[in-house]
């Protein structure tokens, strides 16, 4: 713990946004703007089957009829959807089969991000799919996973090689018509990850996707689909970074999880998109739809998220508890600093009997930021003996930031037990002084208090990433106290 704090301190004092660099490689871009032609362009580039193009066009046409949502507690200038490049791919002849084939500049990019794509050097037990701008660059450990029947590859590859699986599940949890951004994503998504865990298989390593926005004026629209057959288990982690740019960039992803009977999916996110500068210029608009379904009895889906980046975050990783005795969890730490805005939370939809859900949300606001928790717990008429426990804690640093909680509870079955607890606190001068008086300086004290506050959520992260995430918390709050 001590060494960790040491590190945090070093990083806190030295760094601003350390992933803000830009890599230079040739890219293959779609013309700016969005039309049916753009959709066709993307589909053609990816050599997609006709059904996929049809799916996209349908989504696009539906999107044209939709309005951007205005209910989140965030504000931003209107997005000009014709001013975005919807497809940008590093010019690599083909998808790299071996690491030697990867463009050295690309490889350097990932090295700078602290992600080694060389399997032998990598953290043991983590397989990585690396996505730059619109395409997946490489996926590691594929063969080894393949031996157990696990499919872990990019979405484009899955469409080519496992069309039956993709066709069956894509859009089954988040249909294109679900919301404005999911429709947009369905029309123009370019890549993402696909995981398939066969019946009874426990995935032997963490699966991880690393998303990187590099090109300017582009939007990133990735699509992730995870299918866990009965009795299987998988733990999946995604990480995200982007260069520092003065203009805002749009990221609208869709993630779908399907857990069948007694299957378990654990999905962790460490989101560190560029948050914008201290004056609130630039940063990523992170408008994401994430939803999982516990389709079978005793299935379990657990979302853990550490959200420190993005100038605006709009996302509600949700679980549809359809199977009886199924279980949904949502653990979240959302940090906002400077001018960041976050409106995030979850939806737990109890449809099956004896379903359980647990929500633990920790919001940390600093600077002039605004941090909202928005959560829905819904118990359907036939979901007898459903149980939910929600806890929403907010921590404020300074007196110019805001913390808001919007819990929605809809219960139609009188055997349900739904609990909601909420607290709001401030890091007090008294706490800081107490630490100072024990020889702990203010930055270390803040890191200590923040990590204490977020501990319950951090404990849910896979070991390999917990330390990283702790540092990230401290860095995000650099200079926000004293």
């Amino acid at each position: 713990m001590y060494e960790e704090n040491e590190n945090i301190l070093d990083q806190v004092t030295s760094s601003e946004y350390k992933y803000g660099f830009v890599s230079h490689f040739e890219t293959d871009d779609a013309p700016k703007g969005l039309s049916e032609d753009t959709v066709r362009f993307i589909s053609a580039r990816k050599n997609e089957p006709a059904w996929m193009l049809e799916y996209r066009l349908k989504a696009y046409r539906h999107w044209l009829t939709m309005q951007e949502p205005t209910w989140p507690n965030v504000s931003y200038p209107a997005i000009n959807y014709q001013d975005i490049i919807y497809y940008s791919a590093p010019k690599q002849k083909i998808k790299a089969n071996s690491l030697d084939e990867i463009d050295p500049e690309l490889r350097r990019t990932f090295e700078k991000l602290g992600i080694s794509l060389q399997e032998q050097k990598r953290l043991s037990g983590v397989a990585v799919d690396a996505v730059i701008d619109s395409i997946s660059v490489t996926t590691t450990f594929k063969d080894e996973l393949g031996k157990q029947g696990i499919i872990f590859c990019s979405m484009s590859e899955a469409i080519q090689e496992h069309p039956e699986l993709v066709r069956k599940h894509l859009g089954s949890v988040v249909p294109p018509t679900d919301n404005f951004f999911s429709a947009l994503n369905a029309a123009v998504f370019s890549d993402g990850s696909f995981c398939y865990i066969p019946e009874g298989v426990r995935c032997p390593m963490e699966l991880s996707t690393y998303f990187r926005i590099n090109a300017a004026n582009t939007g990133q629209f990735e699509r992730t689909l995870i299918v866990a057959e009965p009795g299987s288990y998988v733990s999946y982690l995604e990480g995200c970074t982007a260069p520092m740019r003065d203009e805002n960039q749009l990221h609208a992803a869709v993630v779908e999880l399907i857990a069948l009977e007694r299957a378990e999916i654990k999905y962790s996110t460490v989101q560190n998109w560029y948050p914008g500068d201290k004056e609130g210029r630039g940063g990523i608009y992170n408008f994401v739809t994430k939803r999982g379904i516990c389709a079978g009895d005793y299935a379990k889906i657990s979302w853990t998220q550490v959200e420190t980046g993005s100038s605006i975050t709009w996302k509600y990783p949700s679980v549809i508890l359809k199977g009886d005795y199924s279980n949904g969890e949502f653990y979240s730490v959302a940090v906002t600093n400077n001018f960041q805005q976050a409106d995030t939370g979850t939806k737990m939809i109890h449809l099956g009997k004896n379903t359980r859900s647990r929500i633990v949300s920790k919001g940390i606001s600093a600077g002039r930021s605004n941090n909202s928790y928005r959560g829905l717990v819904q118990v359907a008429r036939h979901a007898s003996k459903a149980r939910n426990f929600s806890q929403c804690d907010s921590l404020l640093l300074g007196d110019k930031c805001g913390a808001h909680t919007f819990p929605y509870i809809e219960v139609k079955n009188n055997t349900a037990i739904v609990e909601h607890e909420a607290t709001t606190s401030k890091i007090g001068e008294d706490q800081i002084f107490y630490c100072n008086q024990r020889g702990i300086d203010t930055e270390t004290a803040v890191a200590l208090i923040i990590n204490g506050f977020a501990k319950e959520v951090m404990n849910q992260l896979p070991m390999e990433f917990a330390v990283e995430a702790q540092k990230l918390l401290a860095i995000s709050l650099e200079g926000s106290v004293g």
Partner: protein
Amino acid sequence: MLKIKNLHAGIEGKKILNGINLEIKAGEVHAIMGPNGSGKSTLASVLAGRENFEVTGGSVELFDKDLLATSPEDRARAGMFLAFQYPVEIPGVSTTNFIKTAVNECRKYRGQEPLDAVAFLKMMKEKMKLVHIDQSLLSRSLNEGFSGGEKKRNEIFQMAMLEPKLAILDETDSGLDIDALRIVANGVNSYRNGENAFLVVTHYQRLLDYIVPDFVHVLYNGRIVKSGTKDLALELEEKGYDFIKNEVELTLNV
């Protein structure tokens, strides 16, 4: 060790300390007594470096260095400890983790290697006995849900762990029952070694039955108006603070 010369301080423009003079040498125990509002806790806070107090005059030296120009954390690292009257709670941070961070920050300042987990645990086990503190308490979040007595014992435990050269106890006896008082006092006494010094701030003579002071000072209206030995504390106990007040006013009138 500690030299306070003509110290003036206040808060939000209100003067509280009006010229304190006090010298504490290694191995000595000084008690500061006085009625409510006389400035006892202010003195403790100013010495520890609490920001909202403003020093308006005078000087304080700790080991011949200007204490007032030193940050609170560096004062602590240099060997000054304050046992708080109202210890704060820090949710989610275990007492053990907190103390370990503190101990190692202080060690770093002194150019020592951080203690590893084994050495730290060993040290903790030893010091726990001093104040009869239980392991289960130390695993809990710092001071969260602790009883008054547990909080005060935890303060003395932290003192023992940090091994300060000068410990200021700010009304450590308040809110303690007689058994807890004895435990806390024993903890303090067993830490006395002839080299470290104590400044004990208290309302009551009671604590001084257990922690026997070398000097007793009476603080009134932000000044030390009378100093003496242990007997002064007994006299105060007997006659109450009014006798001091009367004496002071008499002097002023002359």
